[in-house]
């Protein structure tokens, strides 16, 4: 099949890419610390402890840059692989957490929990629950016996997404007091701006665990993308497999939403790009998507926080870059990957 060398090469690229980007981006920011200095500070902190560097430098490297870089890598990789998983479940390359309404459902769940002044953990659970519900509704509505499901799926996803956005507005209307309101409005924006270690410690583990699970079953997910009869006849327990994939991608999406709001295009664009480069086998697409997704969000967010004096919400950048690229890809391939 493939030579040993190209396998090793491809694997190294996927691992090296995020690492290189990390090393570059840790040296980018509004404050002067460039790569050499930034890495020196990081090394000092790791080797000699917090007290060995200036307070200011510690604050910038650890609290601002490192936390955002980590968040971007984790969320970018997570969203991308969640996209691949959903595309396998629905046998459709045009679905993603955004287009299936999962992200909107998660936003609503989070808003609802905030309305009842729930703690961080409950917010995440609520986001997860409604993310799954939204996905389930889209799935059920789109079931058409035989025939092309693409149109139905996308339409259902748009409808369900809009529905949950409307619900969020309802929550805003009811939440007529103080702190609750600005927090809820915030969920609609996609931004890594409020990243902090406390929320990362809560929100990152589910993303990492579920991404890992998806990574482990990556070859098997290929079977799921065949027709139901074919998948069954290849010995797959479709129900469990679908459930597992939907659950994993919903957990990832809702964790991302609870930390960063809705960030679009990564779950749709990254798998698409990876398929163009590596082919459709999820054996390669899943690891590649994780890597590319992480890097894409990291680069976008680095621009977000350092391009101008003030922040540019990262969802603007992902849309500005993602939409034209996706349009171009669609046009060139005519919808077929």
């Amino acid at each position, binding site marked *: 099949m493939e030579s040993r060398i190209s396998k090793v090469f491809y694997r190294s690229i996927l691992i090296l890419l995020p690492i290189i980007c990390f090393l570059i981006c840790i040296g980018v920011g*509004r*404050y*002067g610390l460039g790569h050499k200095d930034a890495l020196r500070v990081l090394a000092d902190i790791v080797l000699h402890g917090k007290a060995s560097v200036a*307070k*200011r430098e*510690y*604050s*910038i490297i650890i*609290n*601002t*840059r490192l*936390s955002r870089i980590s968040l971007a890598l984790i969320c970018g990789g997570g969203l991308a692989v969640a996209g691949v998983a959903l595309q396998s479940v629905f046998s459709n390359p*045009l679905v993603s957490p955004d*287009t299936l309404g999962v992200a909107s459902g998660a936003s609503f769940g989070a808003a609802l929990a905030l309305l009842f002044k729930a703690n961080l953990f409950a917010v995440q659970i609520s986001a997860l629950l409604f993310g799954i519900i939204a996905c389930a509704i889209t799935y059920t509505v789109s079931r058409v016996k035989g025939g*092309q499901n*693409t*149109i139905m799926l*996308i339409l259902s996803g*748009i409808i369900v*997404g809009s529905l949950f956005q409307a619900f969020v*507005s309802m929550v*805003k*209307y*009811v*939440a*007529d*007091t*103080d*702190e609750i*309101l*600005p927090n809820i*409005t*915030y969920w*609609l*924006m996609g931004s890594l*701006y*409020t*990243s*902090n*270690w*406390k*929320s990362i410690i809560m929100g990152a583990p589910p993303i990492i665990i579920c991404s890992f699970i998806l990574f482990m079953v990556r070859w098997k997910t290929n079977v799921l993308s065949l027709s139901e009869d074919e998948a069954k006849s290849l010995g797959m327990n479709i129900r469990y497999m679908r459930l597992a994939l939907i659950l994993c991608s919903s957990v990832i999406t809702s964790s991302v939403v609870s930390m960063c709001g*809705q960030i*679009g*295009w990564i779950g749709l664009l990254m798998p698409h790009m990876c398929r163009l480069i590596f082919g459709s086998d999820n054996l390669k697409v899943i690891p590649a998507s994780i890597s590319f997704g992480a890097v894409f969000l990291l680069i976008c967010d680095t621009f977000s*926080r350092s391009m101008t*004096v*003030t*922040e*540019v*919400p990262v*969802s*603007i950048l992902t*849309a500005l870059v993602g*939409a034209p690229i*996706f*349009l171009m890809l*669609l046009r060139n391939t*005519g*919808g077929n990957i």
Partner: protein
Amino acid sequence: MKRYIKFLAGISLLSLLTGCTSNNTATTGKTSGNVSNESVPDTVSKESVLNQATDGKQKSGKRVIIDQYGYEVELPEKIERIAIHRLLPLPSVYAVYKGGNVDGLVSMPPDSLIAAQNSILSKYAPDILNVSTDYYKGGELNMEELLKLKPDVVFYAGGDKERQQFENAGIPAVGFSTTADTSTIGVMEKWIEQMEDVLGEESKVNGIAEYAAETEKEILSRISDIPEKDRVKVLMIGHYSDTNFTLGGFGEYWTDATGSINVGKGAEGNINMEQVYAWNPDKIFVSTLSDFFPEDFYNNTTVEGADWSGVSAVINKEVYKFPLGMHRWWPPSTDAPLALWWIAKNTYPDKFKDISIEDKTKEYYKKFYDMELSDEDIDAILHPVKGVGRHYY
């Protein structure tokens, strides 16, 4: 055909998603300090304004004026019920304009009420506490609630969206621009002028503008000899909460008038901590629109994840909280000249050793509001309580 359908699906996806993101970004910190691009009418003298009001086109009993956004507004003959939208300080300015009451004000923003409830304004014009804020339930303009109050006119700040909304609802809408002047005091003056124009009544309180001009002159003369290298770097924070860290538009006037270097000049949008460190201000002034106090900066209890401990102003304990008098002293309010003294004294204490803010405040309130302030009153003004920040964005 199949290809075409898939292409269409892609387009609709695209417009949906970019539509979503652009809608959502519109909610990013719409502050009262946003720079607007609308044209601003030239300053006119008070008399000619009043003359214009009576000589204006008569359209079956209605007058037409041009508002501060440059739009023509048809006013009803009798204006007895006024609503105010988005202009947080305007209700207090209106109370001063009326000389101690808010007759005719039927609706105002909730954030104005919060300020009024916790400030001296509740003593100056107690009826302000009864003004309805229901129209802004849920953080969004509820037109039906507003119409229930039968306003004759609405004073608003905003863009085409708001203007259209009021037009569709049939409420004459007069735009009050927050950038009608480069000076925060000038903005307040222009607001009073426009109210006189619209309501056909002269302001009950006069002379604030002249007082302000004198104050500005004196302050500048005191600091004019400070060399460039000794000028203080100041960070003026307009809005700071869990989800919002924007400097707002009025800070530039405050620093220009008091001779300090505004590190955040021109910055519109959210600021991240790294940028603060890049600026490294000597002093920080926090407006009362934010709920954070100097202790929060010193103890790092502001926003989760924000570490202020390395900033010069925090290390040297030079963080100051704006006072709350008739209204918050940060945006255009009738207490604005006092704010000048307060900022100047905190910025260059050596140059203003002889000035007592407490005394200035007492004098001012007697002169313009005919109020005798007790020591507790003054203390309450200069040290606002917690929880009076802006909550609706």
